[in-house]
C-alpha cells in the first residue's frame, strides 16, 4: 500500500510537471533528437544523459502502415507490413530484404512472432486467423476460431501474438479485456489473464449514492489490452491502454501481474519487448519508449512525439514519431521502433551510459556486488545525478556492509527508506563501539553529582547559583514568556490569572507567538533527511508566512467576533494571549521532533508521531480551557463557540476570495474599455 501511495505521488509529479530543458548554454552536443528522461531524487520527470541515440531510419522498404516487428537471434527483422498484406524478412546487418511472404489469405497481418525454431506466427484480424509459416516462408498451419463450446459466441480477431517455448499461443484481439490462450494445436485453453474494472474515486462515490437500477446503466469497461509478448524464458508480458499504472504487466504462470504495485508509464502503451537479460522496453503510441529493469523499476524513457503545438505540419525527424506501433531489440541492444503513420522504421543505438546500466544491473542480480559497484561508478561518471546509479550503489554497499557509503548514495538518490536502514546500521555500530564510553560517562556524572551534594552540605553553593539564575529570570518580560510553561501544567489557574491581568502580557504573548513561528519554520525545513520530505528550494516562504499568520490571526479575530455577540467576556487581546500562551506543548514538541529526527530511523518513527499527537492534543485542550476561562463559558458554550468560529473562518475566506475575483473582473473590464478606446483612437 505504501508503495502505491509513493507511486501515486511520483506519477502525479511526472505528468503534471514535464521537465525539459534549460537555458543559456546549449548542451545539445550529441546527435540525440529527443531527451532521455528519468525520475530524479524528488520523483520528478527530468532530463538525463542520453541513453539512446537515433541511428538508422529505414524508409526505403516501401512499407505501408506496418503494425508489428520481431527480431530473431540472428538479427533478422520480421516486419508485418500490414497495409501491403505481406511479411518481410529484413537483414538488419546488411540492410537487405531476405524474404517476402505474400499469401492470398493474408488480409491485414498485424501481429508477428518468431519462435526459436524459426516458425513465423502471424496474427491477422481481418482473416480472423493465426498463420504459422516455416522459416523459409511456407505455410505450416492456419489456426482459426477455436471450436470449444466455452469460446462460442466470442469474436476471434487476433491482432497480436506471443508464443512460448512449447508452442502455446497467447493472443490478443477480438476479446479486448482478456488474453486468449491456445494450445500448440490451436485448442482454446481459457483466458490467460484479464483486466479488471478499476474504480475511480468518483466511481466509488457514485456507488454509495446510486440505486441498483442506476448502477446498471453505468458503462464500466475494464481497461483494454493492446499487446502481448513472450520472452525467451516463456514469461508473458502484456500492455494495457487507458491505465497508467498497470500499462505494462509481467505475468506469472497463473497469469497474475508481477508488477502489482504498478510501473511508471503512460496510458498509451502499444507494444512491449524483452531482451535476453530481461530488460523491458515498452513503446507508447505517442512516441516514447520506456525502459524498465526486470523487476519493473523505471530506468528511463526516450523518443518523443513530433507533435508541435501551433504547427499544422509536424516535422519528421529521426527519433521522433507520429505514432509508434511496435518496438523490438536486436542482439547488439539496438532498439528498433516502427512508425505506422509514416511507415518507416527507426533504430536507436545504446550509448555507453545505457550499456553500463544494463551490465551493472545484471551483475547485481548475479550477486557480484564489487564488480557491480565498479560499473555503477562509471555510470556516475557519465551522469552524477543518476538516481538509479546512486540507488544501486547504495544497495550494493549495503550488501557488502559499507553502510556509511550506502548512506551517502541514498542521500543523493533521495531514497529515504534505504537511507534509514543504512543509518540504523551505522548508528547501531556507533552505539556498540561507544557503549563503554557512554557507561563510563554516566557513572562519572553520577559520581560527580554525589560529590557535589557532599560539597554543598559542607560549603553551600547551590543557593548562590539559584539566586543568580532567578535574578536573571525575574525580569518582567522573561517571566511573562516563561509563564507559558505554567499555563501548560496549570491551565485553569493560569488562564484565570491572565484574565485578571495579573500574569502574562501582550509583549510576552507576541514574543511567544513570533518565536513560535520561527520554531515552526525550523521544524518545516530543519528535520533530518529521512523525515524531511520537502527540500528548502521547493518551499514557498510566502505561502508559509501567509498561511501561518492568516490562519492563527483569523482564528483570534473570528473567535473575538463570535464571542463578543455571545456574551463572551474576553476582548481580542485576551483571546490572543490565551492562544499564544497555549502553545507551550507545541514548542516542546517541534523542538524535540526536529532534534530527534536527526538521530532516529524509520523504526522509531512512532516515537515522533506520539510526541506530535500528544502536543497537538495538549495545546488543543489548553485552547479549549482558555476560551472557557477567558469568556467564562460553560463547556457546552465553549464547544459551540469553537464550532461557530471555525464556520466563520471558512465564510471569511470565501468572501475574500469572491472579492478578489470580482475585483479582478472589474479591473479587466476597465482595461478592455481603455484598450479598445486606444485602438479606436490610433487606427
Amino acid at each position, binding site marked *: 500500500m505504501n508503495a502505491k501511495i509513493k507511486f501515486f505521488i511520483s506519477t502525479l509529479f511526472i505528468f503534471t510537471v514535464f521537465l525539459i530543458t*534549460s537555458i543559456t548554454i546549449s548542451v545539445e552536443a550529441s546527435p540525440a533528437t529527443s531527451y532521455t528522461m528519468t525520475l530524479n531524487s524528488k520523483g520528478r520527470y527530468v532530463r538525463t544523459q542520453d541513453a539512446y541515440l537515433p541511428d538508422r*531510419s529505414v524508409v526505403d522498404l516501401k512499407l505501408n502502415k506496418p503494425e508489428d516487428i520481431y527480431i530473431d537471434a540472428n538479427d533478422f527483422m520480421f516486419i508485418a507490413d500490414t497495409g501491403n498484406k505481406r511479411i518481410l524478412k529484413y537483414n538488419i546487418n546488411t540492410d537487405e530484404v531476405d524474404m517476402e511472404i505474400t499469401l492470398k489469405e493474408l488480409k491485414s497481418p498485424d501481429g508477428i512472432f518468431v519462435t526459436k525454431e524459426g516458425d513465423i506466427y502471424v496474427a491477422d484480424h481481418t482473416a480472423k486467423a493465426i498463420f504459422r509459416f516455416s522459416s523459409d516462408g511456407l505455410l505450416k498451419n492456419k489456426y482459426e476460431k477455436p471450436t470449444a463450446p466455452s469460446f462460442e459466441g466470442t469474436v476471434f480477431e487476433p491482432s497480436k501474438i506471443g508464443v512460448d517455448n512449447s508452442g502455446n499461443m497467447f493472443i490478443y484481439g477480438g476479446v479486448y479485456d482478456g488474453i486468449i490462450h491456445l494450445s500448440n494445436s490451436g485448442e482454446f485453453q481459457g483466458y490467460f489473464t484479464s483486466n479488471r474494472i478499476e474504480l475511480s474515486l468518483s466511481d466509488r462515490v457514485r456507488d454509495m449514492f446510486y440505486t441498483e437500477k442506476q448502477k446498471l446503466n453505468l458503462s464500466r469497461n475494464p481497461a483494454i489490452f493492446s499487446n502481448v509478448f513472450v520472452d525467451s524464458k516463456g514469461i508473458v508480458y502484456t500492455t494495457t491502454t487507458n491505465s497508467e499504472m498497470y500499462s505494462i504487466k509481467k505475468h506469472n504462470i497463473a497469469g497474475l501481474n508481477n508488477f502489482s504495485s504498478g510501473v511508471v508509464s503512460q496510458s498509451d502503451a502499444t507494444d512491449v519487448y524483452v531482451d535476453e537479460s530481461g530488460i523491458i522496453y515498452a513503446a507508447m503510441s505517442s512516441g516514447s519508449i520506456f525502459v524498465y529493469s526486470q523487476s519493473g523499476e523505471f530506468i528511463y524513457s526516450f523518443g518523443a512525439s513530433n507533435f508541435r503545438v501551433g504547427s499544422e505540419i509536424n516535422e519528421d525527424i529521426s527519433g521522433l514519431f507520429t505514432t509508434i506501433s511496435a518496438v523490438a531489440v536486436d542482439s547488439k541492444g539496438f532498439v528498433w521502433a516502427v512508425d505506422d503513420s509514416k511507415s518507416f522504421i527507426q533504430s536507436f543505438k545504446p550509448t555507453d551510459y545505457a550499456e553500463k546500466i544494463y551490465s551493472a544491473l545484471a551483475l547485481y542480480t548475479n550477486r557480484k556486488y564489487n564488480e557491480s559497484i565498479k560499473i555503477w561508478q562509471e555510470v556516475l561518471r557519465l551522469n552524477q545525478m543518476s538516481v538509479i546509479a546512486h540507488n544501486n550503489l547504495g544497495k550494493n554497499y549495503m550488501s557488502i556492509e559499507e553502510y556509511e557509503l550506502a548512506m551517502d548514495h541514498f542521500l543523493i538518490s533521495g531514497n529515504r527508506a534505504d537511507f534509514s536502514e543504512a543509518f540504523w546500521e551505522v548508528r547501531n555500530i556507533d552505539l556498540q563501539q561507544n557503549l563503554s564510553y557512554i557507561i563510563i560517562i554516566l557513572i562519572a556524572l553520577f559520581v560527580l553529582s554525589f560529590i557535589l551534594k557532599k560539597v554543598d552540605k559542607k560549603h553551600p553553593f547551590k543557593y548562590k547559583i539559584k539566586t543568580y539564575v532567578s535574578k536573571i529570570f525575574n525580569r518582567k518580560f522573561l517571566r511573562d514568556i516563561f509563564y507559558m510553561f505554567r499555563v501548560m501544567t496549570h491551565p485553569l489557574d493560569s488562564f484565570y490569572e491572565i484574565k485578571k491581568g495579573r500574569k502574562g502580557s501582550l509583549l510576552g504573548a507576541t514574543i511567544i507567538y513570533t518565536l513560535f513561528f520561527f520554531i515552526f519554520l525550523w521544524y518545516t525545513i530543519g528535520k533530518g533527511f529521512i523525515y524531511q520530505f520537502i527540500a528548502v528550494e521547493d*518551499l514557498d516562504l510566502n505561502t508559509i508566512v501567509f498561511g501561518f499568520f492568516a490562519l492563527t490571526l483569523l482564528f483570534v479575530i473570528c473567535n473575538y467576533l463570535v464571542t463578543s455577540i455571545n456574551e463572551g467576556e474576553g476582548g481580542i487581546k485576551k483571546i490572543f494571549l490565551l492562544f499564544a500562551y497555549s502553545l507551550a506543548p507545541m514548542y516542546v514538541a517541534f523542538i524535540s521532533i526536529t532534534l530527534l529526527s536527526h538521530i532516529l530511523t524509520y523504526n522509531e518513527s512512532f516515537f515522533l508521531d506520539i510526541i506530535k499527537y500528544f502536543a497537538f492534543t495538549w495545546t488543543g485542550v489548553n485552547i479549549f480551557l482558555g476560551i472557557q476561562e477567558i469568556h467564562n463559558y460553560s463547556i457546552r458554550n465553549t464547544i459551540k463557540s469553537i464550532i461557530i468560529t471555525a464556520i466563520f473562518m471558512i465564510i471569511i475566506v470565501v468572501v475574500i476570495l469572491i472579492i478578489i475575483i470580482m475585483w479582478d473582473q472589474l479591473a479587466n473590464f476597465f482595461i478592455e474599455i481603455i484598450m479598445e478606446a486606444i485602438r479606436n483612437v490610433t487606427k
Partner: protein
Amino acid sequence: MLRNKKFLIVSILLLLVSISVTVVAKYIPSNKDTKLPPDEVTNVIFDPTEFQKLYENDNFIFYYRDSRDVFAITDRRTGYTWKTGIDRAFSTDTLDACDELSRKATDAEKLATCIPIEHEMVHEYLAIANSLISIEYYDATRAIKNSSSAALKDVTSTLVKVNNDETHYRLDVNFEKIKIGIKVHIYLNEKGISYEIRDEEVIGEGSNNLHAILITPFLGASGGVELIYNLEIDDYDYDNPVYKDLIPGYVLVPDGSGALIRFEDYNTSDSKPLSNYQGSVYGTDYSQVDKNINYQFRYVEFKEPTMPLFGIAHGNNQAAFIAYATSGAEHMNIISTPDEGRFMKYNFAYPKFKYNVEYYQIYNRAGSGYNTLLEERNHFDIDLSYEFLAGDGSTGLPANYVGMAKAYRNYLIEQELLKVVNYAYSNVPTRLDFLMSDVKKNLVGFENVIMTTIDDVENNLRELQSLGVKNINSGLYGYQKGGITLGKPNNISYSGEIATKSEMKEAIKNLSALGIDISLSQDFVKINEEQMKVTGNSIRHASSKYAQLNMFDAEAPVTSFYYARVEKSIDWLNDHLRDLKSLNANSVTIEGLTNTLLTDYTGKITSRAESIELIKDGLSDVSEKYAINASNPNMYTWEYVDRYLNAPVFNSQYIIQTDTVPFLQLVLNGTMELYAPYSNFSFYTQSDVLRMIDYNVYPSFVLTQQPSYLMMSTNSNHFYSTEYSQYKDLIIDIYTEVDHALKNVINHEWTNREVLANGVILNTYDNDIKIIINYTNDPYSYNGIQVEPLDFEIIGKE
C-alpha cells in the same frame, strides 16, 4: 599419409575459421554519415527551338521561353542545361490539342501532339512548377493561397531588357486579381544568374497581403509522374501513370553542419507523406510567430540555418548550383520538399522570402484576442545569386557540396566578411569551459551554488597543461553573484566565494603567462524577471506584448525568459567591457547576441535588418580590442568572431535528410577556430573523436570542480556530468588524438573531402597532407596504406 590428412583437415578448419572471422557485418551508413556520391546523370541535349537566346558569355548561354516564364541556362563547360522551371505545357492545352486532332491522324502525328502530360498536376501547380517567381498570399479569409508568374489566368508577366543592357532584364509580374505587382530584376553574369526584388517595386493595394515570394521553386527539381498517350486505347493511360526517372543528385541545406537531401522516392503512405525540410535563416523570429508566449519543445530543438543559402547537385561531380542571398537573408526560409509531397511528385527545393505573417492579437488580460496580419509588412530588398558549378573541380570548383562551400567561402572572403587567419601556434587549441556557479531557490530569495572557484580553474588548467594539453582557452560561466541565471549582463558583480576582481585579474595574468586565454562569458539576450525589470528591456512581440519563452522544468528556479532589446544588449555589452578593461583579458565570450535575431515592436519598429546592423556595430567595436568567442554565431557576425564555439557536427536529422556533411566547417575552415560541442554529453566515443578530425573541429569540454549533482535544483540541471576529476584523463586522451591529426594542417586550407567507401573519408589539404578517417569496424586499405578500424591515417607527413 594419415598425418598429411590431419594436416589438411586442420588447415581447412583454420582457413574456415579465418574466413568466418573476416566476414563481418558491412558498414551501413545512417543519415549522420556522408554516403558515396550519387550516380552519373545523363546529359540531355537541350533543344532551344521554343526559346529566345538572351545572352551568352564564356561560361553560359542564357535562353528564355516567354510563354512559360522559363529561363534555360546552358553551361558551356559541360553542356549541361538548367531550367528555372519544369518547362511543361498546361495539361488542358495538350489535351485540347489532342482532342482537336482528326480521327485520321497517324500514330506518329498523335504522339507528336498528344505529348506526355503531368499526372495530377492542376494548372495552378503546373504554373508554379514552370514559374520564375511564385507567391503565397492571404485571401479575404486569411487563408494562404498560391499564385505564380506563369499562371494560366489573372496574372501577366513581361520580360524587358533594362537600359539596353543585355545582362540585365526585368520581369514585371502583375497579379491583377489580388492587386500585387512585383518587378524581378534578372542579372546574367559569369557565375550564373542573380535576382533582385526591390522593396519599392513590390507594390499594389494587395501588397500588404503578400505572405511570401518563392524564386524559381523548381530549378533543379527531380521526379514527377506523367501520363502517356496509349495508342491501343486511343487515349491517355490514366490508370497507369509513369514515374519519371529521378535525376541522381541532392539538395544541400545549411542545417546544422550541413545536410544533403538526396532525390529519392520512398513511396511511403500517401495520406501522410514525410514532411519537408523548412529552415528559417538566422532562427525563428519569435516576435512574428503566432503568440507572444512560447514554450520550449519537448524534444531537442531543431537547428536553424546560420547561412542564407542552399544548393542542388545533379549527378556525380557534373552539374550543381549554390544559391545565396546577399540581401533579405533575414526573411529567407529554405524549403526542400521530398517526392512524397502531397500534390507534386517532385523533389524540389527553393528559397522563400516572407513579407507578412499572421499573429494573435491579445486585447485583454485574460488573453482573449483575434488573428490578424502585421499592420506593416516586412520591408527588405531581395538579392539572390545562383552560382553554377561544373565538373569534378579540375577546372574551377567541383560540382558537389565541397564546391558549393568553396563558392560561398570565396564570396564571403571577397566581401571581406571572412578573412583567412595565420595562427602562430603549432598544436591545435582546445576549449575548456568552467561552470562557476548557478542559483537555486532558498527560503528567501536565491542561493548561489558554487561549483568552481578561480583557484580551481587555475590549478586544473595548469595541471592539464603540464600533462600535455598544450593549447588551451577557457570561458567562465556564472562567475558573478547570481551565477549563470541571475548574473547581471550590464555590470559585473564579483562573488567573493568564486573570485574577487583582483583574484580574477591575477588568475587571468598568471594563465596568460602560460599562454592560456581566459574569458568571462555572459548572455546578453536571455533575461528574466528575477534578474532585472523586464519593462523597457524586453523585446515586444507584434502584439506589443513581451516575447516570452517558457521552459518545462520542474527543478529550475527560473522558467520564464525574455529577449533583451538589441540596443540594451549592446549597451550592456559595452558596460561589461568597461568592467573587463582593468582585468586585461584578451578575449570575451558573448552568448545570445550572435545567434538571436528578433524584430522589436517597442515604439518604432526595429526590423531584423536594423538589428543586424546594431549587432555588427557593437561587435565591431569589441573586436578591435578583444578576441570574440561566440556560440553558433550567425553569418553576419562572422567577420568579428575569432572562436566559433559549439559548432554543430550533426544536422536536425529530418528523415528525408540522407547525409550529414561538414559544409559549415568547409566554409569557415582557416578563418576562425571551430570547436566541437562539449564532449561531456554523448560526444566522446572513438567515432566522435574521428568526427572531430573529419570535420576539422577542436575538442571542447565543460567542467566544474564540485560534483554536478549539486546543480540539480538550478537552471543548469542539464549538466549531469562535469566534475573535473572525472574528465581529466578523457580530456588528455581526446586532445592528444585530435592534435596528432589536425596539428599537421594548421594554417593549411582543407581543399577536398571525398567518400572512399561507406564510412571511409578522405580529406585533402593544400600542403598535400591527406587524412583518411575510417569509421567502420573493418580495416581499410588505400594505396597500400592500411587504416585500422575506427582509426585515421595521415598521408604525406614528412
